[in-house]
């Protein structure tokens, strides 16, 4: 893993990763097209499970389990992700911890790495949705959305 962060990029998580596998971008787009943001809770969790299956195939990683719980977490002990809500960015964040577990992390700080990877992939796959969500403050850890004067 890298020892340092790009100068000035610490909070600009959407700029921390520039290149992604094309199939990973498609997997994220497919989840949204399948109705992730329009579905009821249970079908939405199933859409995320399908996305994880696709990502595991793309990155060659072991199966993981997605459960509903009070807290959002990734357990290396059991290869398990928990989400209180079927959030795309949260799902990608926790999936990045799964990648880190199997040696696919990049930045030394695994939280920074997970925030950067998930937000950057969201921006890459769904640029309009990313911009809207950022401007509405719906993405954690991001700096304030830049105004036109900036």
């Amino acid at each position, binding site marked *: 893993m890298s020892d340092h962060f790009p100068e000035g990029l*610490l909070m600009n998580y959407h700029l921390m990763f520039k290149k992604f596998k094309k199939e990973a971008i498609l997997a994220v787009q497919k989840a949204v097209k399948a109705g992730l*943001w329009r579905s009821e809770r249970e079908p939405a969790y199933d859409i995320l499970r399908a996305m994880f299956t696709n990502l595991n195939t793309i990155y060659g990683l072991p199966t993981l*389990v997605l*459960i*509903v*719980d*009070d*807290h*959002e*977490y*990734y*357990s*290396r*002990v*059991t290869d*398990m992700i*928990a989400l*209180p*809500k079927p*959030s*795309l*960015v*949260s799902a990608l*964040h*926790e999936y990045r*911890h799964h990648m880190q577990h199997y040696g696919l992390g990049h930045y030394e*700080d*695994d*939280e*920074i790495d*997970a925030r950067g990877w998930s937000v950057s992939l969201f921006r890459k796959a769904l640029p309009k*949705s990313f911009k809207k*969500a950022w401007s509405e403050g*719906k*993405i*954690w*850890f991001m700096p304030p959305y830049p105004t036109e004067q900036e």
Partner: protein
Amino acid sequence: MAFFQKQPKEGENWVEYEIPSMPVAGEAAAMFRITAPPKEYPDADLHLAIERAVGRFNREHTPEYKRGDVADLYIDRKGDTFRIKVSYWPNASEGQI
């Protein structure tokens, strides 16, 4: 802070705690299983460790941050000790997209 507790590691909006495993047994286990929400839990031990990490975060970061500001947890285990990284952000309980 008690002498046996290590100082937590900290980074950009996260703090890592070492939580000794406390196997739940007997009557306590029966009580715990009633309150443990998901059936998928591989062991009650993990759930208890999560609650202890969140509780410790809450105690150490009040009043600046509260329980609902816990964004996510990254859990590892070395032997009998859970290593739980608690990441936080204001109003995380409201969720993100």
